[in-house]
């Protein structure tokens, strides 16, 4: 597949199929996790809590992968080829926002680990999960697009989500990008379901439905 020929990015534009897909599937998995948390709060079925925590776990794992791949990509486009100083990279709002979002999800697992009572753990962590999901939007999507950012989607460049904007992303990229998002998401869902099945087998005696 041919890709747009751009300066600085060069062939590394193909990272769109990996780095961006990680974040997309992370968002989808976190969304699924929140749905199960709300379902837990609606009926207090412990099965829904197991679904929620495992989807959140795989989602944060994909987020960490997205962060790691982003550092590699930024190293060869922002740091060296755009001559950005380390200070401007550290001030980058997209990186700070993504780090905050991942740390909030890290706190979710810390919170879960600190309870000994299972029902209390499930109930409080379900409420916290909804808060964590709500915090994703300002920290990742809104604030980096309000203030200046090197990352695509900043107010200086094209507004809105560059990956979803039909006028921004090239049609040749979209032909690979959207199937790639679906594929990576399905891989994440598969790993999550494997983890869920293990947990359901372990807690067979606790679940009665």
């Amino acid at each position, binding site marked *: 597949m041919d890709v747009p020929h751009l300066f600085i990015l060069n062939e590394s534009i193909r990272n769109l199929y990996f780095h961006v897909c990680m974040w997309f599937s992370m968002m989808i998995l976190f969304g699924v996790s929140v749905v199960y948390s709300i379902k837990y709060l609606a009926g207090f079925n412990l099965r829904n809590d197991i679904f929620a925590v495992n989807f959140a776990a795989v989602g944060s794992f994909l987020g960490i992968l997205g962060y790691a791949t982003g550092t590699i*990509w930024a190293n*060869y486009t922002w740091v060296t080829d755009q001559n950005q100083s380390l200070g401007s990279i550290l001030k980058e709002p997209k990186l700070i926002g993504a780090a905050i979002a991942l740390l909030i999800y890290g706190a979710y697992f810390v919170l879960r680990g600190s309870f000994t009572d299972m029902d209390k753990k499930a109930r409080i962590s379900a409420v916290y999960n909804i808060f964590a999901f709500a915090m994703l939007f300002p920290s990742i999507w809104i604030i980096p697009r309000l203030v200046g950012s090197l990352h695509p989607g900043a107010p200086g460049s094209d507004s809105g989500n560059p990956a979803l904007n039909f006028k921004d992303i090239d049609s040749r990229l979209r032909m690979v990008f959207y199937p790639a998002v679906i594929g990576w998401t399905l*891989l994440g869902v598969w790993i999550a379901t494997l983890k869920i099945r*293990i947990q359901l087998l372990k807690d067979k005696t606790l679940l009665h439905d």
Partner: protein
Amino acid sequence: MTKFMVRCLLFVSFMSTSFFSFAQEKPEMADAMRSNGKIYVVVAVCLTILIGLFIYVFLIDRKISKSEKEV
């Protein structure tokens, strides 16, 4: 005569190497990541994801084996 030619060759080769080293403004460092239009950045990103996935699945595998022993 042969000695003279060897000397000349040595001199020319020395001059050429020193000339080339002065001619380049940027020192030639490990720029493999920038060769072939930065395609190796994509390779590095792919490998990071693959290694990450392998580690994650391996950890899940270890967890399963541990719970298999308990049952």
